[in-house]
């Protein structure tokens, strides 16, 4: 029983991270029907910026004296940086193709993904970069379950970001504009919404969430690598499809399910750990085959949330 609780906590942590990345896929898909393959690389860029900032702050002693301040600072800076990076990517690689076929934009996204990944490799090297994690030690036991402060931190930040995103999308003016634009671009222009701005904002928000996820994954696993965006990117994509691509609540649910399944399968299926990456793809194939609209997907026409 304790073991199960332990795994559930782990699954929640990982699932929350997938959910953050999945949101970027689903929001961009919702608004311009593009599977943004470069999204995983934005996540990796966030992880790298985190390691650079945290290592620097650790070398300056900031992390010994004010670890939480240092983490928050790195998180916010990485989120801002990745938001700008994603807006630049959108402007260079997707906006000029707005009226082209969907395939052209998709290919451009693939190209962007390769470009960014190689850019990371050339500037940061091919080897793993270790996160400074001295300050992440510590934790407590609760009902026989070991919970690290880092895990609590990741869960808290993930939860906070998900709540903030929900409020942004469903309560604010820009959130309403995003939903309107995703449902009907012509009509949203007729009420005065500048769709280019809304699309750019959508990329920025998705990228900020991915950057936060990148840092948290770096902290959780202790290192980052230039190609770290690929597998989590595809898993998060699977999560978005599972939830119903284009649906924000769906992406959150899908991310949690994929994270849980991966952890529980690794824990309970013999040799499951060796195949842990497989389960997300099994789910992806299963969803595409049996339930292509996903859990929350209302329809497969050209209007989406």
């Amino acid at each position, binding site marked *: 029983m304790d073991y199960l609780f332990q795994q559930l906590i782990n699954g929640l942590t990982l699932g929350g991270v997938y959910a953050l990345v999945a949101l970027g896929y689903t929001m961009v898909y919702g608004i311009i029907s593009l599977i943004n393959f470069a999204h995983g690389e934005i996540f990796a860029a966030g992880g790298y910026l985190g390691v650079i900032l945290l290592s620097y702050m650790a070398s300056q002693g900031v992390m010994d004296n004010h670890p939480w301040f240092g983490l928050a600072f790195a998180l916010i800076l990485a989120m801002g940086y990745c938001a700008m990076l994603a807006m630049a990517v959108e402007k260079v690689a997707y906006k000029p193709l707005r009226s082209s076929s969907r395939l052209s934009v998709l290919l451009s996204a693939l190209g962007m993904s390769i470009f960014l990944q190689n850019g990371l490799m050339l500037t940061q090297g091919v080897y793993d970069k270790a996160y400074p994690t001295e300050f992440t030690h510590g934790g407590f036991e609760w009902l026989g379950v070991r919970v690290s402060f880092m895990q609590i931190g990741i869960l808290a930040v993930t939860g906070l970001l998900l709540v903030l995103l929900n409020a942004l999308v469903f309560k604010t*003016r820009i959130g*309403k*504009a995003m*939903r*309107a634009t995703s*449902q*009907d671009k*012509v*009509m*949203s*222009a*007729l*009420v*005065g*919404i*500048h*769709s280019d701005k809304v699309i750019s904002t959508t990329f920025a928000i998705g990228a900020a969430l991915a950057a936060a996820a990148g840092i948290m994954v770096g902290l959780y696993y202790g290192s980052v690598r230039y190609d770290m965006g690929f597998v989590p990117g595809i898993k998060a994509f699977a999560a978005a499809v599972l939830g119903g691509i284009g649906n924000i609540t769906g992406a959150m649910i899908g991310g949690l399910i994929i994270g849980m399944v991966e952890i529980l399968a690794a824990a309970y299926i013999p040799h499951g750990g060796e195949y842990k990456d497989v389960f997300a793809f099994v789910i992806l194939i299963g969803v595409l085959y049996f339930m292509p609209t996903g859990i929350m997907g*209302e329809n497969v026409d050209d*209007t989406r*949330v």
Partner: protein
Amino acid sequence: MAAILELEGVCAHYGRIQALRDVSLHVGEGEIVTIIGANGAGKSTTLMTICGIVRASKGDVRYQGASILDKRADELPALGLCQVPEGRRIFPRLTVQENLDMGAFLRRDADGIAADLGMVFRLFPVLFERRKQHGGTLSGGEQQMLAIARAFMGRPKMLLLDEPSLGLSPMISQHIFRIIRNVNEESGVTILLVEQNANMALKLADRAYVMETGAVVLEDTAAALRENADIKKAYLGQ
């Protein structure tokens, strides 16, 4: 009467197909003008070209004396030019309230917006009852009311209406036409109305244009067109 809207020799294309041929028309400030014509005559394309959704390949569109051809579609509502488009285009998964909010997207005057919201809820009480429902769950008539109410929320100087009676019962159509007349008489909103129901349109309008295959073929006062033998036969079913 000063013209608020003028089209001069406007042409538009969908790919290689020419949808508008040298369309020229004008609408005076405070007027109700209607464009009648059969399906595919270019009426909706004319409205979409005025609003910058369809790009004119030739000619000029002037609003309040200045050309608006170089403006993006989303810049026009700020000038008081709003459209209720063909097919209503309700945001299906926004609530009725949110659809109305979108109509006032560019406005910052919270008091004015609240006042206008009260006004449209008085005009269309059913929208108040359904304000928390998704737009997509409304009936056709309710959606048409919402589409018009949403346009009112932009506090337009000029309203372009595309087939407001399409698919509605005669009673609801008449209700909607009465509201259009009221907003014109009481608030001085200029109306350009596209209709297949020529009978109702010509009763409401001051002047009318008749379009056929992308071109304006006839222009006159609505009263005169109602007595025109060709129009009676072709459009009024008499």
